């Protein structure tokens, strides 16, 4: 009976902690605090030194939870990534995941050896633990700020974080082995290096193959076997866990495998896609909350204090020197601009992976393993605070985000069983949406019905859409999300009493130079020879959307019709409100100042 009582208490505490995590997300978003940090702090507060007084020191359980959570987060990250968006990012990401991680680990290791006054091998181990960026943190933070990064930069950062864990895990494991063997392997340096490289290649290859096979198998199974509705998402998550663990059992990189499997599955037609994405979303949230809570619980904040100062120095070195060095080394051959490299350097977010890698020495019984764990913890907290908090700001400053504010779409998606080519999507109709202001529906979207005043109205009777309708369409799943732009709220386009798409309409082929003459547009030097379509393509990374707009002097150009990623028609809003004009003048002044100082 006592056993049962204990179980119930443990369940009660766990449930309460997750509830607290969810509640704190409300507060955190209001202050713009990085949510993962909030979960971590919550865990620390609940832990032995906080008001919660929960004594938790089970490294093995933490490792288990961490592995499971990371596998699911990485899988979800792959699932959401559009393969075509990875174009041009694979090479740089792989360079960063290999050369980048090793460089960072080496530099951080050297400094750690000096700061903590430990043997070089142990310093290097510490370097390896904090060398890789964290997929959980990166996937989460990049999408939390409402910004949309330029495709190449975003793809490199995401892909790097998803693929660098194997290298860091491997380095950590090898170094632990060497330290435990008291440097016995340090004899034949070159031979050892070759052996290590060989094993690393082996692990990565097995991981890649495992992910490919697993992904295709999952896709095939999902689309061919009939299951009761609720089981599809579960099938996918369970498959991900199997792919991860089986690959790891076969001495491959499980992390690489789940990410690749997610990429494959997410880029093929998928039955029950809507429910899978929804459930995965919830699962990923739960993983983030539980993983960071548990890591927070595991640490003893009072023991952190002992290493706080030196660990903070190491962290600063990582942020200011080691990471930028590695990024410069890896990305320069791929012709990234300075601001792009600057941003990638700044977004070297450390997270659960580092803390979790720090558990390996403890689990393996390396003497003085506490040090690694506590230092990793401080480094992660520093990274979440300094880099996490400033991420959106840095993206805007370094001009690596698209000039667009993304409001989350309130799309309802319904799977249509029996076929994979169409799904149903529904949107609430807002007065400030493009569709209510002259935007046109693409041909491939077929109106299904409208919900108006709680009644279903068929297209034949509904007439024009009205505000507060909910409109439903049949659309190919791959394109359905493109409707988001038509229904998104664009209050900033209605800041004056001018029409949403402006007074005058122009073809995308009109050269900007000719427009500039009539409307006093401020054209930058590179823009003089562009057409309207080319301008939108360059500023919105070849994927402009209806409602995207660019201010040029007092006028604003608004994309009105977009076909196959090219703006075919654009409107011109003539006069911005006076306040806006003042703000843009100040901004222009600042950018001139920046150019003077030579920052750009």
């Amino acid at each position: 009976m006592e056993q049962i009582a204990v179980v119930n208490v443990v369940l009660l505490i766990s449930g309460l902690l997750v509830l607290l995590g969810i509640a704190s997300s409300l507060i955190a978003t209001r202050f713009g605090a990085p949510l993962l940090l909030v979960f971590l702090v919550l865990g620390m507060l609940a832990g032995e030194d906080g008001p919660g007084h929960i004594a938790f020191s089970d490294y093995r359980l933490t490792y288990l939870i961490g592995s499971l959570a990371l596998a699911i987060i990485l899988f979800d990250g792959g699932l959401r990534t559009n393969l075509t968006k990875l174009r041009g990012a694979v090479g740089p990401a792989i360079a960063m995941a290999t050369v980048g991680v090793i460089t960072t680990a080496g530099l951080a290791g050297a400094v750690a050896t000096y700061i903590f006054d430990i043997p070089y091998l142990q310093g290097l181990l510490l370097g390896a633990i904090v060398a890789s960026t964290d997929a959980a943190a990166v996937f989460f933070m990049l999408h939390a700020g409402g910004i949309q990064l330029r495709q190449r930069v975003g793809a490199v950062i995401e892909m790097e974080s998803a693929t660098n864990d194997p290298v860091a895990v491997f380095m950590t494991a090898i170094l632990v082995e060497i330290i435990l063997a008291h440097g016995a392997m340090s004899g034949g340096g070159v031979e050892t290096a070759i052996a290590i490289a060989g094993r690393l290649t082996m692990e990565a290859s097995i991981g890649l193959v495992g992910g490919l096979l697993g992904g295709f198998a999952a896709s095939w199974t999902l689309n061919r076997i009939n299951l009761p509705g609720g089981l599809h998402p579960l099938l996918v998550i369970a498959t991900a866990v199997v792919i991860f663990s089986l690959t790891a059992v076969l001495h491959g990189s499980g992390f690489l495998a789940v990410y690749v499997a997610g990429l494959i599955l997410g880029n093929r037609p998928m039955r029950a896609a809507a429910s899978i994405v929804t459930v995965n979303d919830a699962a990923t949230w739960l993983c983030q909350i539980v993983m960071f809570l548990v890591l927070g619980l595991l640490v003893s904040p009072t023991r952190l204090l002992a290493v706080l100062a030196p660990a903070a120095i190491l962290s600063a070195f990582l942020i200011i020197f080691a990471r930028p060095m590695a990024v410069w080394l890896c990305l320069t051959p791929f012709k990234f601009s300075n601001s792009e490299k600057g941003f990638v350097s700044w977004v070297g977010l450390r997270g659960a992976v580092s803390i979790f890698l720090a558990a390996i020495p403890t689990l393996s019984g390396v003497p003085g393993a506490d040090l690694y764990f506590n230092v990793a913890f401080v480094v992660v907290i520093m990274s979440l605070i300094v880099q996490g908090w400033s991420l959106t700001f840095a993206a805007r400053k370094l001009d690596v985000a698209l000039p667009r504010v993304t409001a989350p779409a309130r799309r309802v998606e319904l799977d249509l069983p029996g076929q994979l080519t169409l799904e149903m999507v529904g949107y609430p109709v807002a007065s400030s949406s493009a569709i209510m202001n002259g935007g046109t529906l693409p041909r491939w979207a077929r109106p299904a019905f409208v919900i108006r005043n709680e009644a279903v109205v068929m297209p034949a009777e509904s007439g024009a859409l009205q505000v507060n309708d909910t409109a439903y369409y049949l659309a190919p799943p791959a394109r359905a999300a493109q409707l988001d732009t038509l229904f998104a709220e664009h209050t900033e386009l209605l800041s004056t009493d001018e029409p949403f798409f402006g007074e005058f309409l122009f073809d995308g082929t009109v050269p900007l130079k000719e427009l500039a003459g009539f409307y006093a547009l401020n054209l930058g030097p590179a823009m003089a020879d562009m057409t309207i379509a080319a301008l939108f393509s360059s500023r919105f990374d070849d994927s402009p959307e209806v409602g995207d707009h660019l201010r040029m002097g007092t006028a604003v150009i608004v994309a009105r019709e977009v076909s196959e990623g090219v703006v075919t028609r654009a409107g011109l809003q003539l006069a911005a409100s006076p306040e806006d004009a003042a703000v843009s003048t100040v901004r222009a002044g600042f950018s001139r100042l920046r150019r003077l100082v030579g920052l750009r």
Partner: protein
Amino acid sequence: MEIRDILQPEAVVAGLKAPNKKQALQELARHAAAVTGLNERKIFETVLERERLGTTGVGSGIAIPHGKLPELTRLYAVFARLEKPIDFDAIDEQPVDLIFLLLAPESAGADHLKALARVSRLLRDASMCEKLRGAKTADGLYLLLTQTEAQAA
């Protein structure tokens, strides 16, 4: 920026006769030449050049052709109500019967945009357009175009 600052009573025409867009623009250019003292052909070509970039038929039977001329020292406008609506390649493909021509000096910049926005806002008002279509004389049109803004202000 007020309409009465740029539109003179003699630049308002009720019942302009023109069979098509080109001739309507030619007629407007002739009236504009009379108030500005500039070459009619020059005005016509400037306005036509702007139409080539995209129509100024903004919908609901309204067109706002415009252009910049280096010889001008201030903004000038001509307003015409056509006797019969004509095809103007308008955005909504509806025939046009109310045309507001706006000419600006080369250096006008923001003033030019403000004036265009002002005219566009005035003619977007459906009840205004209804009154303009019902007015009998050019004087009536002029009063409508200039009075409303005094009330609004």
